[in-house]
């Protein structure tokens, strides 16, 4: 730097700006020779991840379409195959009723009941008329009508049960006039079909299901432990992940508190697979000063970084398994035509298993190392939120779909490790439920 320049510098602020600008105008130092390879590898990873997300999205859409089609098919099938089991029930006098029964066969008649209230009323009328009616009927009609009367009588009796009323109320809000007719004739609610033993509405339901989820890991430093973790660790781990899946199977027992609210206790098993690919050179921690507090994995704070370290190039697959005991709340809010909205909030205690020996990145040195189960907690808590739709096929059976999101509440590493990593997953779950009668 010459004196003239410096003198100019001293004169005015504007000149220092101009001088600085001139100095850096042609400032073109060469970056490290291997840097393009790192960019190239990062672009590759990005492309793979983006493709992977599209595959998942396509799979989710396909699953949704298939599920909706299955529900539609099931509904259609039920409508076509079901035959009327209740003879024409009319809100007329017993004598008129008998005359009407003689004119038409039960199978060809369309029920004239248009709502549940009318149904209940007519049921009471029929029940009163039953003893004398039988005397006026032909033998085959008499048997048929006796069966029908029994069914109505059964149903009448159920009305005294508060839980049944809940169930009927739930159904009647879900159905329009046409489906109310179906309830009478086809039997989604015909729990006293034929001469079966009267069935009590159950409070217990068994539910089984499976999740197809996308998973991932969230990384953050425990507060005040920022200097224990390499400054690029979070970025590297994030960009290194390219294929992540979480499949889960579950079974649960629901206890119905009321028509809309249930509690659930279950058992689930999940396999969370994360694949990572790294190919980079990174700066190395310069000084790791002992004498300060170490974290639970024995690391001390980093003070400064040296130049580029060795090339890190590896691909690994880690599997985190979780045996879970979920418990919590499940709702069934009537929506329309036999469909309910089913939100779910569950907390779970998860027994964590890791693929010991799989390669991963050390959070202080950014060098690859083998995973050890001692570094991980045995149990982690989790939270699952889900909401979806359930289709009741009949009194006992229902199928449903839910969008679910779940996350670990406690980190995976042992307490007081500088790194707090938590798994999450989100996706689609399908379930089947069976009400125990």
């Amino acid at each position, binding site marked *: *730097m010459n004196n003239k320049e*410096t003198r100019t*510098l*001293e004169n005015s*602020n504007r000149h*220092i*700006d101009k001088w*600085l*600008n001139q*100095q*850096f105008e042609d*400032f*073109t*130092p*060469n*970056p*490290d*020779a291997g*840097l*393009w390879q*790192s*960019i*190239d590898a*990062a*672009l590759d990873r*990005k*492309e793979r991840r983006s493709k992977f997300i599209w595959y998942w999205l396509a799979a989710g859409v396909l699953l949704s379409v298939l599920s909706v089609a299955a529900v539609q098919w099931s509904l259609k099938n039920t409508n076509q195959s079901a035959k009327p089991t209740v003879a024409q029930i009319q809100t007329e006098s017993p004598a008129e009723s008998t005359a009407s029964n003689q004119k038409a066969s039960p199978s060809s008649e369309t029920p004239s009941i248009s709502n549940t209230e009318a149904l209940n009323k007519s049921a009471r009328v029929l029940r009163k008329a039953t003893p004398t009616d039988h005397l006026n009927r032909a033998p085959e009609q008499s048997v048929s009508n006796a069966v029908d009367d029994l069914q109505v009588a059964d149903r009448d009796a159920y009305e005294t049960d508060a839980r049944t009323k809940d169930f009927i109320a739930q159904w009647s809000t879900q159905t329009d006039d046409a489906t109310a007719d179906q309830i009478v004739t086809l039997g989604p609610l015909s729990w006293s079909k034929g001469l079966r033993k009267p069935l009590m509405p159950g409070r217990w339901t068994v539910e089984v299901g499976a999740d197809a989820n996308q998973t991932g890991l969230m990384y953050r430093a425990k507060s005040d432990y*920022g*200097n224990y973790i390499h*400054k*690029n660790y979070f*970025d590297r781990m994030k960009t290194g992940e390219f294929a992540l899946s979480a499949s889960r199977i579950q079974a649960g027992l629901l206890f119905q508190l009321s028509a809309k609210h249930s509690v659930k206790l279950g058992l689930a098993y999940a396999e969370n697979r994360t694949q990572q690919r790294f190919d980079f050179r*990174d*700066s190395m921690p*310069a*000084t790791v000063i002992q004498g300060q507090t170490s974290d639970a994995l024995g690391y001390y704070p*980093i*003070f*400064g*970084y*040296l*130049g*580029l370290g060795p090339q890190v190039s590896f691909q690994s697959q880690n599997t985190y398994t979780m045996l879970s005991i979920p418990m919590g709340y499940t709702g069934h809010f009537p929506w329309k035509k036999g469909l309910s909205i089913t939100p779910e909030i569950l907390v779970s205690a998860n027994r964590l298993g890791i693929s010991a020996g799989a390669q991963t990145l050390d959070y202080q040195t950014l060098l690859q190392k083998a995973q050890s189960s001692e570094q991980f907690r045995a149990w982690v808590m989790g939270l699952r939120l889900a909401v979806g739709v359930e289709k009741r096929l009949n009194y006992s059976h229902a199928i449903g779909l839910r969008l679910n999101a779940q996350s670990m509440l406690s980190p995976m590493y042992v307490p007081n490790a500088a790194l707090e990593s938590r798994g999450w997953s989100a996706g689609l779950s399908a379930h089947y439920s069976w009400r125990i009668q």
Partner: protein
Amino acid sequence: MLNNDDIIAGCVNKDRIAQKSLYEKYGAKMFGFCLRYSNSRADAQDLLQDGFIKVFDSITSLKDPSQLEGWMSRVFINLALSRFRKTSRGPIHVDVVDVVDETTDSVEVSSDFMEIEEVFQCLMSLPENYRMVINLYAIDKLSHKEIAESLGTTISNSKSLLHRARVLLKELVEQQRNKDTGKQ
């Protein structure tokens, strides 16, 4: 060597050869830029890598191909500012590495390079927020309003930081000059 239009067209189509050409053409220029905004050479290389990935991702938003270099600079500035905002809240790592390019060992180059290296050392000796403001205002020609918005501060605060940065930089340059004079 591809021209800018071909490079941009190739990058829009995610053609890796075009992307490499863009890197080869502007890599060194942008690396100088990254060094000014980073605490170390390693940080600057990280910034350069992230910056190019951002450029490749968002090159479809470039409207005027003749403005490619200016547009890239703006992408890198935004990225550097975003990093600054992140790190200014978190722990600041003390860097023990010289920013001198260790691969440059030619005597002729180094004698030329020394001057800029000295200026660069002075710039790097400034506190990070001073350096950020003087970089943005004096070299990259942002207004105080833009700087204030980018750093989440006020215009008067930006002016104040710039003033302090200039004063401190003058002192550092003086010290450097005296050191050089003493050597001679």
